[in-house]
């Protein structure tokens, strides 16, 4: 009797599905760790945005079971003053793809991170 691994899963198994309930605390902890004492400074904000994006996507990608997911991380960092709003629309497979968002606000800096997780069949 031979067993063959199915390499082309049409959906992740229930245990390996990207879940906001698992991803949200990760985002929360990263934002709080990096930004709790941060102050918006124009010369450093590019590096900060990149650092947050890389850290978030690599942490999520290393979660068990999410190796078939592609991650798009969008980080908006701003001074607390201006009004702003972000919206998105996605054409995907809602059985396996998902988005998670987390914001951090302090008197010195404001940051919103959104992660879109897209399953690769």
């Amino acid at each position, binding site marked *: 009797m031979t067993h063959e691994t199915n390499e082309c899963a049409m959906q992740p198994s229930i245990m390996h599905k990207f879940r906001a309930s698992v991803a949200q605390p990760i985002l929360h902890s990263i934002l709080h760790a990096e930004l709790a004492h941060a102050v918006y400074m124009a010369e450093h904000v590019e590096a900060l945005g990149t650092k947050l994006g890389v850290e978030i996507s690599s942490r999520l990608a290393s979660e068990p079971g999410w190796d078939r997911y592609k991650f*798009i991380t969008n980080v908006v960092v701003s*001074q607390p003053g201006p009004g702003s*709003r972000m919206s*998105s629309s996605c054409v995907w497979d809602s059985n396996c793809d998902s988005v998670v968002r987390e914001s951090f606000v302090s008197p010195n800096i404001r940051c919103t991170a959104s992660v879109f997780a897209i399953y690769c069949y």
Partner: protein
Amino acid sequence: MTETPERGYNTADVYKHLKAAVDMAVGPGEYQHGKLDELHTNIIDYATKKITAIRPASVKVVVTCTIVQNSGDGFHISNTTLWDDSTDSVVTFKFQNQSMNIVVSAYLVHS
């Protein structure tokens, strides 16, 4: 702007649709927090509809729109993607007028 016909779509066309979405929605508009919803909806709906029509069925599309008031205060938007560079693309269109900054991005992900 790279031409990527082998992916089934052209990033120049995607850029064109993002630009058209913003131009059509904004006009001579001023930043009004109450009208943001409408602005977002118009931009996103138009861009998504147009981009979805030009891509092959195996490509998933995510369109994001960020609008920030132009108050002189600083802001920064960054994208980090963990994907396959040979099959996936991101196209970004930036717009600025006296009252607002709009950044629209379309991510096309092959699945």
